[in-house]
């Protein structure tokens, strides 16, 4: 009998013993397997006097035999009385046993609650899905006292992530197959498996497994599995706790997913902000003053930034030279290439006063190798205004839309003759020129205008742009600029801006 049980019985036995002693008995004791556990009166133990003793067994579930013993009594009803006491003691022993069991379970449950708290706490510091799964598998194996546990998630892009802790017993293929089974069955799975890779001597044993599907965003995207390599079965309380852990794991997986998505978004956001900043810094801060011309220029980047550029090159004493262009591709890459173009153009203009075709040729020379390296090209329109002769010289390397509208005349596209910068090792651009008198209008824009879409997916297009230009020819350069943006905004209301919109407007004015 355990000490604590005896200690609980003693007060009751003392009451019985004192009653017997008061009625004239000489001794009262409780014996186990022939050994005295306790006696009254307390003192050196009396030798067992079989003749005048009355004994009664105490019936319990234990393997030992317990009995009560009274010595020196003359009570004829002693047997009956002792029987009643023995029955009460037996009940007490039984109750003590139950109480002890319940206490143990309570402590275990407390432990488990603390463990779940640990699990949640540990999960908070994990940034990656792999870390979150490692932690889940580790804690599950520890809390449920299994040989190992595995956690598996199928990511939105289809790639599975597997964690096995503390030791991997399953191959990735086995883990994947088990995941598919619970995913298809949509319920818990109890099964056994021969382990392929174990260096234990128990290589031939079947491992027992309990796998639970985990709902992530209302779909079975993950699973938690427990493994006992010797085939030890899982108890019902274990499975209950395992399900609680699995559900908790589901919440952790959702958190890890959300974190990943937020980080990815932040990265894209940062990249775009950087790209936009690069572009804004490289655009001209001031419009040059040119006799005979009114200038206006603006660039409106899209959400998904591209590589539009416009620039005024050539310094004082030189004819106004401007360039408008569009780098292939989008995002940070395009913005960086645009900055290369910017540098090249400014370097070129510092050397000598070159014609537009020569500028395009130089730019192609300088940038062809680098553009080939990065797999980019850039369309470019270079214009140069000769104030004295009122001539506009230009070269067009693959760029559109550039629209010229003489006062009172029809608007027409100035088509490209050369390929974009970086496409061919030699430039095919030739200098062209047209008369640019007061009242004439030139709009050098990028395809963010012509390709602007409305809600039905229809594009603004070249026809509309030509008609629009004709309708604006009487306005000043800034007015034309505003009207252009307004028209495209109105047209594409409801549809997000897909591409940068850049335009340089030249209006001829009397000097």
């Amino acid at each position, binding site marked *: 009998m355990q000490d604590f049980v005896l200690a609980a019985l003693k007060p009751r036995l003392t009451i019985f013993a004192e009653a017997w002693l008061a009625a004239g008995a000489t001794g009262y004791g409780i014996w186990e397997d022939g050994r005295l556990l306790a006696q009254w009166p307390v003192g050196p133990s009396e030798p067992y006097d079989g003749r005048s003793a009355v004994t009664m067994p105490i019936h319990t579930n234990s393997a030992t035999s317990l009995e009560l013993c009274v010595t020196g009594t003359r009570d004829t009803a002693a047997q009956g009385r002792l029987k009643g006491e023995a029955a009460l003691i037996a009940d007490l022993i039984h109750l003590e046993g139950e109480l002890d069991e319940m206490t143990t379970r309570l402590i275990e449950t407390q432990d488990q609650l603390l463990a779940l708290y640990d699990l949640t706490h540990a999960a908070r510091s994990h940034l990656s899905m792999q870390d979150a799964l490692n932690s889940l598998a580790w804690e599950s194996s520890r809390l449920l006292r299994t040989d190992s546990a595995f956690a598996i998630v199928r990511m939105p892009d289809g790639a599975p992530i597997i964690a096995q802790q503390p030791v991997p017993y399953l191959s990735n293929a086995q883990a994947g197959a088990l995941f598919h089974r619970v995913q298809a069955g949509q319920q818990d799975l109890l099964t056994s498996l021969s382990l392929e890779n174990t260096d234990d001597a128990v290589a031939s044993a079947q491992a027992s497994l309990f796998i639970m599907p985990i709902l992530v965003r209302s779909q079975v995207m993950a699973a938690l599995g427990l493994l006992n390599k010797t085939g030890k079965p899982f108890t019902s309380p274990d499975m209950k706790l395992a399900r609680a852990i699995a559900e908790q794991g589901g919440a952790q997986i959702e958190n890890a997913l959300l974190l990943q998505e937020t980080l990815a978004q932040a990265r894209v956001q940062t990249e775009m902000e950087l790209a936009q900043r690069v572009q804004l810094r490289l655009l001209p801060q001031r419009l040059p003053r040119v006799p005979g011309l009114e200038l206006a220029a603006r660039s409106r980047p899209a959400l998904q930034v591209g590589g539009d550029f416009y620039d005024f090159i050539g310094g004082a004493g030189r004819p106004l030279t401007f360039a408008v262009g*569009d*780098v*292939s*591709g*989008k995002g940070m890459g395009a913005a960086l290439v645009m900055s290369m173009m910017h540098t090249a153009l400014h370097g070129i203009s510092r050397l000598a006063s070159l014609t537009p075709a020569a500028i395009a040729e130089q730019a192609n020379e300088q940038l062809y190798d680098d553009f*080939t390296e990065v*797999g*980019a*090209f850039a*369309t470019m329109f270079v214009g140069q205004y000769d104030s004295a002769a009122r001539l506009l010289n230009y070269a067009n*390397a*693959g*760029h*559109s839309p550039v629209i010229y509208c003489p006062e009172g005349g029809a608007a027409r596209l100035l*088509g*490209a*003759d*050369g*390929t*974009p910068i*970086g*496409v*061919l090792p030699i430039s*095919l651009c030739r200098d062209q020129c047209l008369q640019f008198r007061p009242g004439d209008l030139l709009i050098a824009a990028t395809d963010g205008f012509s390709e602007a879409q409305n809600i039905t997916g229809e594009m603004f297009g070249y026809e509309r742009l030509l008609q629009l230009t004709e309708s604006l020819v009487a306005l000043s350069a800034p007015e034309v600029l505003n009207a252009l943006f307004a028209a495209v905004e109105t047209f594409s209301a409801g549809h997000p801006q897909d591409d940068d919109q850049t335009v340089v407007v030249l209006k001829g004015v009397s000097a």
Partner: protein
Amino acid sequence: MELRSRTVNTVTVLDLSGRFDAHTASNVAAALEKVASAAPAKVVINLGDVNFMDSTALATLVQGMKRCRQAGGDLCLCRLQPQVRIIFELTRLDKAFDIYPSEAEALT
């Protein structure tokens, strides 16, 4: 966008269909890189079912063309739809590529 690859004699023919843009360009880029890295580095791109191309797609073709020519071969295009043809004319990329109306003509 769908991409199918087949071989006619020693020339690789790539059949593209759908939207050829920034989202779908990387597959084409990979396929072209593969062709360019093995003799004879000759490829015909069939754009018969391509209804849209953006600048990333154009850049992919330009890059592929350069790589093939670098390796001693070439890249040419065939069966351009009208709206795609216009893009090549506006940018004057029709001067950079050999463009044919049919696959048969491209292969000769």
